[in-house]
C-alpha cells in the first residue's frame, strides 16, 4: 500500500514540473538554458543555420540550439525548426520547443512541418490531451488537408494505439473522401489491429505511389495467420500488375516458408528494368539460401532482359548446383568470357569442368584444363583435378580417377577427394585416414566418416560399391547395395539400413524405405539408429495418410527410447497428429 502511495506522489510531482514548464514563457525558459551570447561569436542570420548544423554535427548541441533559434527568423526556418527539434531532444529540452512552435504556427498557419513538429513534441512530453487538441485545431484550420490525420495517426500507431489510429483514418476518409493519401497509415493501422486483408488492400494502394515501401509492406503483413494469406495474395496479385506489390508478396512468401510461391509472384513481370531488378534481388536471395532452382530461373530471367557475364556465371553455377550441368554449359559459354584467358580460367573454367564431369565427359574436361594449364595456380589446378576425378568416378573408371588426382600433385592426392576414391574402392583404411581431413561439412561426408569409423575391417568393397553407385547418380541401386551390406557388416548394419531408407525416401520411394526402417527397429532395436528409424517410419506413414499408424509408431518410439534426444521432436509430431496444438 505504501509503495502505491509513493507512486501517486511521484506522478503528482511530475505533473507539477510539466505544469510549470508549460506556464513559463517558452522563449524565456529556453533562453535561460542556452549558452549566453558571449560564449560564441555573434553570427549573422544568414550564416546561423549552417553554423548550427556544424555544431550539431560535432555533437555540440548546446551551442547549436541558439543558432537554430536565430535561424528561425530566416527563410531556412523550416530546416532550422527541425534542427532545433533534434538538438532539444538530445538535450531533453523538448518542452522549450513549444513556445517557438506556437509562434511559428501563428505566423505560418499553412506550414504542415510546424504543426507536425508540435504534435511530435507534445507526444514526446506525453501530453496526450494537448496532442489531441492540437490535432483538432489543425483539422479546423486546414479542413481539406490530409496532413493532420496522417501525422496524428502515425503518432498513435507509434504508441501502439492502432484502434484509435484507425478511427482517425476513418474520419479522414469521411471528411476528405476516398482515403486521400493516407494509404500507408491505413495499412499500418489495419495490420496492427489484425485486419490483414484490409491492410493488404491499403498497402497495395500505398505501393502505387511509393514502391520503396515494398519491404515495409512485407514486414507488416508477415505475422498474418495462415487462413488469411490467400486473401493477402489476392490483393497483391490483383490487376493491373504492380511490380512493387509483386515484390512484396515474393518477400512475404519467403517469410511464410514458401519461396517457390515467391518466384511465381515474380516470373511473369514485364521484362523491363523494374522487373529485372526484382528478379535479380530474388535470385541473389535464393542463391544465398542455396535454393538453386529458383536462383537459376531468376538469374535466367535477368539474362533474357539484359546479358551480363557476371550474371551469366552466377546463373550457370545455380544451374550446375540444381542438377542441370548441360544448362550450365549453355548459359555461360567460354566464349562469353572474352579474350582474357586468365580471367576465363578463374571464372568460367571451373564451372565448365564441373559440368563436363557431371555430364560424364571427364576427357573433355581434361582437355579443357590442359588448354588453360598456363593460366592456373597449383591450388586451382588441384580443385579442377578433384572435379575431373569425380567425372571419372561417374563413368566408372576408378584408375583414371586416381590418375587425375596424382597428376595434379600431392595437394590433390591427399585430399578428401582421394578419401572418397579410397572408399569407392573399398579401401576402408585409407578412406578412414583421408576423409578425416575433409573440410566439407556435408551430410554425405559425415555419413561416410561414421561408417568407416564403425567398420571393424580395413577393406569393404561392397560398401564402397554402394557409395560409388550413389556417386554415379543411381540412388535406388545405391540404396539396394547399401542395404545388402547389412548382413556382411553387422557393426554398421543399422546405420546402413537406416541410410538406405533415407536414400530411398529422398527419391520419394517411401514404400520401399519403410521396410528398411522396420528392419532397423525390429532387428537392431538397441542401436543408435532405431529411434531415428522409428521417427522416419512415422513421417513416411503420415505422408501416406496413415495418421493412426504414424501416431502408434511415435508412441512406440517415445516409450521405447525415453532417453533419446529425438523424443521431444517425436512428442511434438504426436501432438500435431492428434491435433492437440495449432499447426505451425
Amino acid at each position, binding site marked *: 500500500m505504501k509503495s502505491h502511495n509513493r507512486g501517486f506522489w511521484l506522478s503528482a510531482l511530475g505533473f507539477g514540473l510539466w505544469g510549470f514548464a508549460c506556464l513559463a514563457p517558452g522563449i524565456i525558459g529556453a533562453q535561460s538554458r542556452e549558452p549566453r551570447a558571449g560564449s560564441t561569436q555573434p553570427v549573422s542570420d544568414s550564416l546561423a543555420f549552417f553554423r548550427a548544423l556544424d555544431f550539431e554535427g560535432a555533437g555540440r548541441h548546446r551551442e547549436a540550439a541558439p543558432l537554430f533559434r536565430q535561424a528561425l527568423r530566416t527563410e531556412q526556418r523550416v530546416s532550422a525548426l527541425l534542427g532545433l527539434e533534434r538538438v532539444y531532444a538530445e538535450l531533453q529540452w523538448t518542452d522549450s520547443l513549444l513556445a517557438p512552435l506556437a509562434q511559428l504556427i501563428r505566423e505560418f498557419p499553412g506550414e504542415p512541418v510546424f504543426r507536425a513538429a508540435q504534435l511530435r513534441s507534445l507526444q514526446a512530453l506525453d501530453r496526450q490531451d494537448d496532442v489531441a487538441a492540437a490535432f483538432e485545431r489543425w483539422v479546423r484550420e486546414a479542413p481539406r488537408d490530409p496532413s493532420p490525420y496522417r501525422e496524428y495517426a502515425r503518432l498513435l500507431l507509434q504508441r501502439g494505439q492502432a484502434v484509435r489510429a484507425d*478511427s482517425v483514418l476513418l474520419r479522414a476518409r469521411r471528411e476528405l473522401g476516398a482515403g486521400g493519401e493516407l494509404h500507408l497509415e491505413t495499412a499500418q493501422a489495419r495490420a496492427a489491429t489484425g485486419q490483414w486483408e484490409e491492410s493488404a488492400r491499403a498497402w497495395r494502394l500505398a505501393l502505387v505511389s511509393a514502391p520503396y515501401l515494398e519491404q515495409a509492406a512485407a514486414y507488416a503483413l508477415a505475422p498474418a495467420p495462415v487462413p488469411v494469406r490467400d486473401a493477402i495474395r489476392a490483393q497483391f496479385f490483383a490487376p493491373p500488375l504492380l511490380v512493387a506489390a509483386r515484390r512484396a508478396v515474393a518477400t512475404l512468401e519467403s517469410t511464410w516458408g514458401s519461396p517457390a510461391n515467391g518466384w511465381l509472384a515474380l516470373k511473369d513481370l514485364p521484362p523491363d528494368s523494374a522487373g529485372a531488378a526484382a528478379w535479380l534481388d530474388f535470385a541473389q536471395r535464393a542463391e544465398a539460401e542455396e535454393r538453386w532452382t529458383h536462383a537459376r530461373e531468376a538469374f535466367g530471367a535477368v539474362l533474357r532482359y539484359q546479358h551480363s557475364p557476371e550474371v551469366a556465371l552466377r546463373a550457370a553455377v545455380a544451374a550446375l548446383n540444381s542438377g542441370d550441368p548441360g544448362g550450365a554449359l549453355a548459359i555461360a559459354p567460354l566464349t562469353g568470357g572474352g579474350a582474357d584467358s586468365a580471367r576465363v580460367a578463374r571464372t568460367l573454367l571451373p564451372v565448365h569442368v564441373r559440368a563436363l564431369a557431371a555430364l560424364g565427359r571427364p576427357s573433355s574436361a581434361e582437355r579443357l584444363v590442359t588448354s588453360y594449364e598456363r593460366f592456373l595456380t597449383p591450388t586451382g589446378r588441384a580443385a579442377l583435378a578433384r572435379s575431373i576425378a569425380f567425372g571419372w568416378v561417374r563413368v566408372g573408371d576408378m584408375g583414371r580417377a586416381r590418375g587425375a588426382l596424382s597428376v595434379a600433385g600431392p595437394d590433390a592426392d591427399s585430399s578428401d577427394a582421394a578419401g572418397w576414391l579410397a572408399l569407392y574402392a573399398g579401401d576402408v583404411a585409407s578412406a578412414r585416414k583421408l576423409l578425416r581431413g575433409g573440410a566439407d561439412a556435408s551430410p554425405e561426408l559425415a555419413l561416410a566418416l561414421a561408417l568407416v569409423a564403425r567398420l571393424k575391417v580395413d577393406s569393404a568393397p561392397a560398401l564402397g560399391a554402394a557409395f560409388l553407385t550413389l556417386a554415379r547418380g543411381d540412388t535406388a541401386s545405391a540404396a539396394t547395395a547399401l542395404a545388402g551390406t547389412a548382413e556382411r557388416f553387422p557393426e554398421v548394419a543399422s546405420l546402413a539400413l537406416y541410410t538406405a531408407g533415407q536414400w530411398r525416401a529422398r527419391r520419394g520411394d517411401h514404400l520401399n524405405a519403410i521396410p528398411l526402417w522396420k528392419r532397423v527397429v525390429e532387428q537392431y532395436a538397441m542401436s543408435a539408429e532405431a529411434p531415428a528409424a522409428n521417427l522416419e517410419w512415422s513421417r513416411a506413414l503420415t505422408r501416406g495418410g496413415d495418421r493412426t499408424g504414424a501416431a502408434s509408431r511415435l508412441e512406440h518410439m517415445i516409450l521405447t527410447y525415453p532417453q533419446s534426444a529425438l523424443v521431444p521432436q517425436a512428442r511434438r509430431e504426436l501432438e500435431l497428429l492428434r491435433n*492437440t*496444438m*495449432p499447426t505451425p
Partner: protein
Amino acid sequence: MTRALVLLVAAVALVSRAGAQQLLVPMDDAQTNHLKAYGLTFSALKAGMKAEWLLNYRGGSFLLPDTPELRRLAGLAGISVEGADGTRVGAIRAEIAAGNMDAVPLEKAPKIAVYGPPDTLPWDDAVTLALKYAGIEYTAIYDDEVHRGDLSKYDWLHLHHEDFTGQQNKFHLGYRDAPWFVEVVQKNTAAARRLGYPHIPALKKNIAEQIRQFVERGGFLFAMCGATETLELAMAGLNVDIAGAFADGTPVDENADAKMDWKRAMAVQGARLEQSPFVNSMSDIDGHQVNVPGRRQPLGAFTLFNFSAKFDPVAAMLVQNHRSVLSDFYGVTTSFNKAALKPSVTVLAFEEGAPWVKYVRGDHGKGSWTYYGGHDPEDPQHAIGSPPTDLSLHKGSPGYRLILNNVLFPAAKKKPLKT
C-alpha cells in the same frame, strides 16, 4: 468360523493395500509437463479410477493408481511420475497430516462444456487451448444448446470471450468494417431472431440468466476475460437497457446505473456502466481498462493467496501451483476492482498495492463460480489476429495451471468442513 473368515478377508485387504503401488505425479519443479499432468489425472478419473489431489504437497501433486496404462500415458506425454509403495505413501500421508496440506479424493471426471461460437478454433481461447493440450474432453455449446436447456447435462461450464451485454465488446469502434466482425454480428443477429429475441442484447441476457440458474442449481462456472464482467452486468441488468443504440437500436437507459439489480449478480455490486458507445469499456469493474488509452493501467504481477488446505479446501484447490507470484496479462477484462466486489467474494490472487484483484471465486446457490481476469496467461498483450500460443513451449505455465485447477475442482469429493 465366521469371525476367522472376517479376519482373513481383513488381513488380505490390509496386505493388498499395503503392497499396492501408487503413482505420485509431482507438481513442483520436478514435474516436466505440469499441464499434461492434469490430463493424466483426468484420464484416470475418466477410466473409473480414483485419484487424490495432495493439496499444498509438492505444488499440489496427484496420487493415482499405478497402472500400466497410466504409466504409458505419462511416458508418451513426458509427465514425470514416481512410483510410491505403501511405505512411501504412508510417509507422504504423515507429512500431509502434519502440515498445511490435505489429500482430497477425486472421484469422477466432470462433464465439461465450453460456451463459444461453433466455428471458433480451439486456439482462440486459453481454456480450450489448455484442455486440448492436456487431452481433456469437452463439448462446445452455444446459444441454441443453452436455450434448449442443455446446461443441465454438464458439471462444469466455461465462458471466455462472450459479451453478455450483447454489444460485441464494443469492437465496432475498431472493427466495424472487418469481415470477421461483420460475420459475427450477422450470425448473432440470426441466432437472436431464430430463438425469438428482438436483438442480440436480449438473447445474451437470457443466456446469462440461464447460466446464473445453472450455477444456482449446483453447476461450476469458470469464466475468463470479458465474459466475467459482461456476465455480471447482464445478470444485474436483466430488466434494464444497458446496450448502446448500435447494438439494440435504442440508447442506454440514462438511469441504468440506478436500476441495476446487483442482488442478481454473483460477484459484483454497485458497478457503474460505461454508457458512451465511443469508449471501449463496459464498466468500472475492470481495473486495467486495456482498450481505453487514457485509462489503461500497466501490467504488474499477481500473488496467489495461501489457503488452509484442511479448512478451506475449495480455495486451496484453485490456487495449487508451483509458483506463487505470476506475471499479469491483459484481456478485455484484465482484473476486478476490489471496490466493485461483493463482501462474500473470496480473492484468490491479488496485485500488491493495487486497487484490483486478478482471480476470485464465490458460491451462488448450490453451485460455485470462479473468475480469472485476462485473456492468455502466456501472451500478456494478446491482440486480435495474434498467433495462437504453443503450449508445448509453456509446459509448466503457472498461469495455465490456474485454469486447469478449475477443471479438476468439480471432480473433488465434497468433504464436510472440519470447523
